[in-house]
């Protein structure tokens, strides 16, 4: 589904990401962990063509992403507040996103219904602008918008941070269900080793831009990761 080859990103002489080759299969749930500055977000931004790679390239379904538009209809993503339109209400924001993807009113109603659990009745119909929502609720709006087009690939950067415990558990359940039912390819970065091992079938550890671990998730994965990070 996604291939990266010889992918590097250099900022002012410092290499922040260096991935000789990585391949993410269709339907795989791919977890990315690493300390701050490990290059997780940089990797995601390169996939989404938001920064220019210093070398190498990213392919989605065999098509290059650089300066192209085709991949945009296949990928749903939420990295940070730049993916929100903060002067809209959540209702307007979903409506607008739905129009961009040509969703019918029926599609939208079904979609919003499927998000009810996550929203916990705090998002829709409140007449509040997104910029006035709490960080946690903003995050929920962004994640929902990424899921709205029913994408083949979902990319989320630290989706669990800022969410309350109930929402974290609901989100986890939702991601697992989507994975099982739709065979969605998921790329999720997280600082929370617990959550990421529960959602992802493959965990990649980045350190200073380099892949240091690439593990199939099993019962021992959490322990292995904990011992790796406990330095």
């Amino acid at each position: 589904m996604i291939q990266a080859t010889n992918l590097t990103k250099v900022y002012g002489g410092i290499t922040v990401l260096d991935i000789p080759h990585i391949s993410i299969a269709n339907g795989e749930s791919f977890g990315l962990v690493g300390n701050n500055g490990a290059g997780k977000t940089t990797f995601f931004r390169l996939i989404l063509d938001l920064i220019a790679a210093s070398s190498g390239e990213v392919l989605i379904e065999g098509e290059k992403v650089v300066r192209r538009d085709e991949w945009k209809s296949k990928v749903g993503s939420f990295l940070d507040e730049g993916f929100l339109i903060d002067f809209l209400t959540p209702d307007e924001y979903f409506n607008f996103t739905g129009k961009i993807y040509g969703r019918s009113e029926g599609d939208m109603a079904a979609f919003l219904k499927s998000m009810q659990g996550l929203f916990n009745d705090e998002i829709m119909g409140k007449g509040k602008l997104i910029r006035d929502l709490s960080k946690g609720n903003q995050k929920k709006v962004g994640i929902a918008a990424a899921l709205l087009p029913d994408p083949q690939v979902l990319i989320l950067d630290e989706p669990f941070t800022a969410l309350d415990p109930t929402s974290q558990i609901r989100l986890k359940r939702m991601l697992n269900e989507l994975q099982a039912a739709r065979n969605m390819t998921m790329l999720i970065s997280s600082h929370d080793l617990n959550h990421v091992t529960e959602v992802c079938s493959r965990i990649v550890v980045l350190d200073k831009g380099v892949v240091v671990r690439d593990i199939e998730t099993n019962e021992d994965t959490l322990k292995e990761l904990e011992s790796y990070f406990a330095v």
Partner: protein
Amino acid sequence: MFLQLLKHHWLKGVRSPGFHKNLLVNIFVGLVALYFIALFIVIGFFLPEILEEIAPEIDPAHVFNGTLLFIAMVILFARFLFQPLSTIHIQSYQHFPIKRGKLINYLLVKPLLNPINYLSLCFAIPFAVSGMAPTFGAGGAFRFAWITVFLVWFNTLFASFLKRKLGVNIVVILTFIVLLAGLGALEYFKIFSLFTLSAQLFNLLIGSPFGWIAVLVFSSIAYFLNRWFFARNYYPESFEKTAKKENIDKQSFSFMERFGNIGDLLSLQMKLILRHKRTKGALYMTLFFLFYGLIFYPFEVYRKPGYLMFTAIFITAIGMIMFGQWIINWNGTHFDFLMTKKISTRTYIRMNYFFLLSLSVVSFILTTPYFFFGREIVIYHLVAILYNIGINTHVYLFGATYSAKRLELAQGSAMNMQGVGYKNFIVIIPLLVVPMLLIGIFSLFSATNIALTVLAIIGLLGIVFTKQLLEVTEKQFLKRKYLLCENFRMKE
């Protein structure tokens, strides 16, 4: 059958996701259309007086007939450039026992039923009453109106024939321009007068009771040229090919579904303006500056070509000056959204182009009261709007890719200079200074009219090459995209 197909087309439009939801855009388009209808009616009524003032010794009806052939050619050129070819989704109908001929007929006649094509009647009918009736009598006025309808048919059909046969490319566009310019030059140097030919031709056609038949014959010829083209080229693949090519164009330039995403993005832009202090402030400033003309126009001292040009461009482009350079910056806070969701670069750039275009058209409409200051002002404003649409929109759009500072829209007023740099002032040079200098220098040699014509032609060329200019901006935007992304992420 024909009606069925038409009904399907209508339903497709009405049921497309873009139709009901783009209320804002529809209202805007409606208002602009009403404005032009009103304008055409007024011009239609008063044109005889204006013509009498310009050429007192010739009958206004004859003057108009003299220019009619040239006007028809210019409109044919415009239609060739901008009129979308009508298409039909052939696959949906192929398996039914419908005769090819019927489908082709539908394709050809459909545009003739589009009311927009009859906008010229809003001009022709009042003019028939006020200009044609005194010379040719009531019957002549009636025949003139019908001849206008037949000319519309001819132009619509012949333009689509040319478009289907030749395609829109640089060579054809240049041929058209050279032809039109050549005819103008021949007239000017008194070698061959299209005016005389046209006047004689239409005087004869309108004057004689059955002249209209000749025009109708020409329309029929245009119709059969299209039939001939389809007879030779109609097989499903080629049909699909035109349809496919059309669809790409439709994404951007046509109404309804063509306006789809662009309309949504435009209404987002409107919300952005109305929901931030800074942009709202700029909106008030724009309205305030519209009165700028009152400082110059009433006074004889300032009635110098250079001043007039400066003022005309300044007030007709004020919307662009206040908003244009920052159109991309404004999207800074949600730029990642725009870059990762299903919005093609082309759509994004065209949305911004349409935004600037609407600003120019609205500014122009709002400044029409200045026309009361005399004919001179009308001419200057018309030249200014052509230059604005043809050149300034593109200069601004291109220039906007250089404003890469994150703007904090939520705070501050219109006078907030945060994020304003020297680059924002460089744009003013092609925008205001070049036309002003051109006019100023030419007026020293009392050749102001030549300078005005040159500016108008430059503007027209810009309009003709809109597509190419937008492609240049698209490439530029893709080059600057990463820098913009990066800068917009940095908060001050």
